[in-house]
């Protein structure tokens, strides 16, 4: 067993084999979606899987982009995603900073309550949120959706940013305070530049949640305020099941999260493990 450290070639190949097998398992369903989105109805309904070699068509994309309200949904998703991410980072950053840096009455309560409300299931929010918007006739207002996404995102963002703030040595701030900086200046001029990657991770998570969220979007939006996931789900009931178009829509929805993954995989993994592995 002591030779394990060197790793025999056989073992190395075995490990690579295992990794490739798992990678294929992860990728196949995603490829099925992308591939199907480029197939015509005849090929899809033939029922025989074709993996790579078929004549690709852009018909499905053309239909999605021109006949549906894809542009409307896309704009809505971007507005809600960007706005809720901004507010999450802004408010969450302030809160995380104070939790990481100062002692005050109620600090412990805020820290624990934040962790607790992070777990509130969206299904529990559904009825009260629906009651709220019907009572004040706010249906079709993207601001309401932005508000709820900010609320849903804040706990996790605070948690993540807290960890990043804790890694910055106190001495940096102390030096600034000695030089006469106010609390706000310390935060804005000294800490914020050091926190760029922290905010990037928290921002990716916040945007992803807003971009993917479905239940609240389904309940709180109308014809013109639907977001992309609601639009995609609509394809199943509206027009029968047109797999090519559904998969084209799915592919378009998945592009931003996949782009994030390729550019920031390490940071995303750091964010995911932050909750369980104490750093």
């Amino acid at each position, binding site marked *: 067993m*002591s030779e394990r450290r060197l790793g025999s070639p056989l073992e190395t190949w075995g490990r690579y084999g*295992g990794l490739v097998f*798992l990678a294929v398992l*992860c990728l196949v369903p*995603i490829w*099925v*979606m992308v591939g199907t989105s480029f197939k015509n109805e005849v090929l899809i309904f033939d029922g025989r*899987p074709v993996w790579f070699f078929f004549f690709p068509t852009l018909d499905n994309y053309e239909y999605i982009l021109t006949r549906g309200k894809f542009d409307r949904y896309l704009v809505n998703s971007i507005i809600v995603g960007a706005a809720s991410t901004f*507010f999450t980072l802004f*408010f969450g950053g*302030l*809160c995380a900073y*104070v939790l*990481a*840096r*100062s*002692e*005050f009455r109620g600090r412990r309560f*805020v*820290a*624990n309550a934040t*962790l*607790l*409300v*992070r777990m*509130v*299931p*969206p*299904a*529990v*929010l*559904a*009825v*009260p949120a*629906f009651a*709220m918007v019907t009572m004040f006739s706010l249906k079709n207002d993207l601001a309401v959706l932005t*508000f709820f996404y900010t*609320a*849903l995102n*804040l706990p996790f963002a605070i*948690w993540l940013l807290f960890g990043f703030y804790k890694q910055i*040595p106190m001495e940096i701030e102390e030096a600034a305070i000695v030089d006469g900086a106010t609390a706000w200046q310390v935060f804005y001029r000294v800490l914020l530049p050091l926190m760029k990657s922290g905010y990037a991770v928290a921002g990716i998570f916040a945007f992803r949640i807003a971009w*993917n969220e479905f*239940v609240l979007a389904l*309940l709180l939006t109308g014809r013109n305020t639907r977001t992309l*996931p609601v639009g*995609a*789900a609509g394809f*199943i009931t509206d027009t029968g*099941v047109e*797999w090519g178009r559904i998969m084209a829509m799915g592919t378009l929805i*998945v592009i931003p999260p*996949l782009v*994030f993954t390729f550019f920031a*995989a*390490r940071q995303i*993994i750091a964010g*995911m*493990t932050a909750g369980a*592995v104490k750093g």
Partner: protein
Amino acid sequence: MAASAAGRLPGRRRPRLDARALTPYWFILPAVLVMAAGLVYPVADALYLSFFDWKIATPFSKADHVGFANYVRMLGDPDVHESLWVTLRFGFWTIVIEMVLGVSLALMLEKPIRGASVFRTIFILPLMVSPVVVGLIWRYLFDARVGWINYYLGLWFGIEPQVWLGVPDLAFFAIVLTDIWQWTPFIFIIVIAGLQALPSEVLEASRIDGANWWQQTFLVKLPMIRSILVIALLMRLIDVFRALEVMYIMTGGGPGRATELLSLHIYNRAFDAQLLGYASAIAVLLIVIVFALSFAILAHGNPMNEKSDV
């Protein structure tokens, strides 16, 4: 707030709160307000609504206050029981399989290897795909007529085509498999991070003492990452109670209630059966379960309780 109340008391002098001492509160105020209005208030509202018989078509002002009637009904409602049972079964199978798979894969592949970052990027892809899209993809794969799963089962094993999403047990199997595809990588990533953070001296020492691979794994490594495993398990369990989208897309909870997890059950009761008050009572049950699990996580220590000590 406390300062002004104390100020009105005669004969009691309190040191004035200076602006500096209030600064932390100004910083946390926006976040706390949004979370209070967007998360805490709805939970309280669900509790309030659970005491009313409120149907979707009537305005709330006409709803009857029914006391604990909704809760009494819930206790004897076979549909709620079934949904709870489905949720527990789903949680059991997905979490057991995901933990076993995720942990064993992590143990096999923990050693640093060239190209690890490429593989890790691929492994988190299922986690990044939006749940609605996951539901759509797997609904297609399990489709009775054009689905790939029927095709390959027939080709390789000669199994007759099945109506996967139309038969209770098969539909349940389908949502379990979908969940395993999406979430096993999560366990894998967390466990591997934990394993690689283990101090190498300890492993070295156990090796020198003659521990074989099994002993090292089960007596040294796994016990040392126990708290990670427990937290991963609790987080997955909470997710099971929050899950809704994938089943909504794949089966809508059916056939019957075979795949109707508790969250989806609440949604269907509220907006399909249109019983908002009754659905709120079930939502209260859900929140109690989720908070109980969250307290179990808190018991493991909240990192945010440690102020910067450096």
